[in-house]
């Protein structure tokens, strides 16, 4: 059976095609201003038996393509569990939201937390800050890694933090130290979410945020251990959606058993 998993997000539209349970192809496209058009392009790319949509635009996609839906929470847990069967938690830093999910063997969600209606602690937060620096997010992350220390950024509100950053630059603080402070601020917020859901290792890091080496380094330091970075971090949700679709028709069972470890 051929299943397309679509993650229609705020910044990108991601796709994974499964054929008889194995990933055949994947794609990450910029969502632009018409994410459903981008999704339509992906749907037309290969013939499939079923489409499952997740992400911010899942319901619109369900209506347009007759797709089944699963939330990002459920999809990320399934995707992470396929990539790393021993994993028990996932951190996803996406364009507009950040979530942490605790799951049992096979990707069965046990608890989760998601940021509410603001961009604090999301990929968007770092994008806005990078813009204030006049660099891109990747460059800002490199500067953060190379920094000899950090400046504390106290505001987590994207709007206030931007003013704070500009103030720090005017005071002559080195950009690299501020950059590191910003990454630390995002990670601090993430760690408290991880503690609240009693996240357990191994922890998978996914979403666009997992492509940011500074975040990966700081999250690993924060949990005092190793972080499993998904090889293609933006497609974990799409993979989960596709796996969900494959299981809907009675393919491989979604939930399998494996031993548990202690809290992070």
């Amino acid at each position, binding site marked *: 059976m051929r299943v397309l998993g679509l993650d229609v997000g705020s910044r990108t539209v991601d796709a994974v095609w499964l054929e008889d349970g194995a990933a055949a192809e994947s794609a990450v496209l910029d969502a632009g201003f018409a994410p459903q058009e981008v999704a339509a392009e992906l749907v037309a790319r290969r013939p499939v038996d079923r489409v499952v949509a997740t992400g911010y635009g899942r319901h619109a996609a369900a209506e347009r393509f007759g797709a089944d839906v699963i*939330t*990002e*929470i459920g999809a990320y847990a399934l995707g992470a569990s396929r990539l790393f069967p021993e994993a028990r938690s996932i951190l996803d830093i996406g364009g507009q939201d950040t979530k942490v999910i605790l799951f049992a063997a096979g990707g069965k969600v046990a608890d989760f937390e*998601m940021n509410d209606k603001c961009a604090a602690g999301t990929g968007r937060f770092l994008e806005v800050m990078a813009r204030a620096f006049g660099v891109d997010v990747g460059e800002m992350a490199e500067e953060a890694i190379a920094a000899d220390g950090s400046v504390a950024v106290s505001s987590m509100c994207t709007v206030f933090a931007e003013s704070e950053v500009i103030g720090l630059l005017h005071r002559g603080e080195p950009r690299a130290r501020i950059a590191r402070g910003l990454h630390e601020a995002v990670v601090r917020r993430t760690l408290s979410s991880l503690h609240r859901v009693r996240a357990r290792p191994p922890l998978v890091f996914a979403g666009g945020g997992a492509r940011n080496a500074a975040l990966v380094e700081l999250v690993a330091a924060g949990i005092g251990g190793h972080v499993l970075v998904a090889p293609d971090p933006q497609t974990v949700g799409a993979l989960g959606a596709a796996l969900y679709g494959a299981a809907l028709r009675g393919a491989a069972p979604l939930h399998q058993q494996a031993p548990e470890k202690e809290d992070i």
Partner: protein
Amino acid sequence: MSDAPVDYRPMWTDLGLDLEAHDLLLTAIPQLYADAYLSQQDRPEGMAYFDFVMSEIHGLRIKELVDHKAAGGTVIGTFCVYVPEEIIRALGGVSVGLCAGAEWAYDQVEQLLPRNTCALIKSAMGFKLGKVCPYVESADLVIGETTCDGKKKAWELLGEYAPVYVMELPQMKRPQDLAFWREELDRLVEKLEEVTGNTLTFEALQKATKEVNDKRRALQRLNAARAASPAPISGKDALLAVQVAFYDDVPRFTEMVNKIADELEQRVASGKGVATADAPRVLITGTPMSVPNWKVHDIVEKAGGVVVAEEMCTGSRYYDKLVSEDATTLEGAMDALAVKYLDVNCACFTPNQGRIDDVLRMAKEYKADGVLHYALQFCATYQIEATTVERSAQEAGLPVLRVDTDYSMEDVGQLSTRVEAFLEMLKA
């Protein structure tokens, strides 16, 4: 219930409403109602009464209040379940819960109150400042209470626009607190005797106590049916019944709710429901939801869940306890009122173990699969108590979703995702 449309505009003008703003409100509410309520499948037939009540929310019911006043009666506005309706009724008054479930005239409100005030207080103030609530405009007296810091300070400001009387509610439930509360009820009687011109008698109070108890009994019957699987009525419809209980005519409401309860009992007997038997069952606990705040119930039920109980002031806290009808003297009847009303488990009390016990007991009785803790943003008491509720529910094996929100619709997308993920988790 005649078919000819009635022009209520002269009445609204007489009450001092801002007609233009009021027209806007009266366009918005039916849309919200149609989207949340009329789109539902297999509603109990008896809910037609509530459709009618909602269509006449600022019409016929207000006309009844105006007529009641013309005949020498009074209208008393309240915001809280701690204000004993029995005393108001026994003194010839009609008790009405005041408007506070939508964002209204926030631009004016925020000139008086900090932006980070809870939505309930801002909304109550907004309906008054914006002159769009015929209930508050009909009220001879508005009774506030000291259930939180925000409210008790806001009443001072509301008092500049309406006649406000504030009751002091204790923060603990020790014997000395009950004694104080009992005296506070005497002070309320004194004030209401002054406003109504009537004197409280034992007979009138016993009659009112019986009537209000009957209203609670009817709601208890309606809600008891929700323990069945599949649920015979949506959470939204059950919530609406309690919301309307705050301002509808008491005997008529009781009769109509009993009819719905009859219908629900038949549904349960024949296994008919509004949701499938495998729909995740959710108990909602937290801060009250006044008309037209159906936001969270709507999200849960549109996502395929069913709300089976509300542990809140627009829920079990309103109807689950009765006032003893055994008193033989006015003093005794007042004592019974004091005992019942202090027994409501609001987060303004410390400690408040009774609420935790209620949540766990209700989750069992209503076979809830999970608990949704609902708190208005900036409501410190409920937001803090959420930690205790969450911990206790999880220890009892119940998954918990914490929702802190307000009356705006800007977080509906995010909230829907969280609720859907919660329901997926309950189903798995």
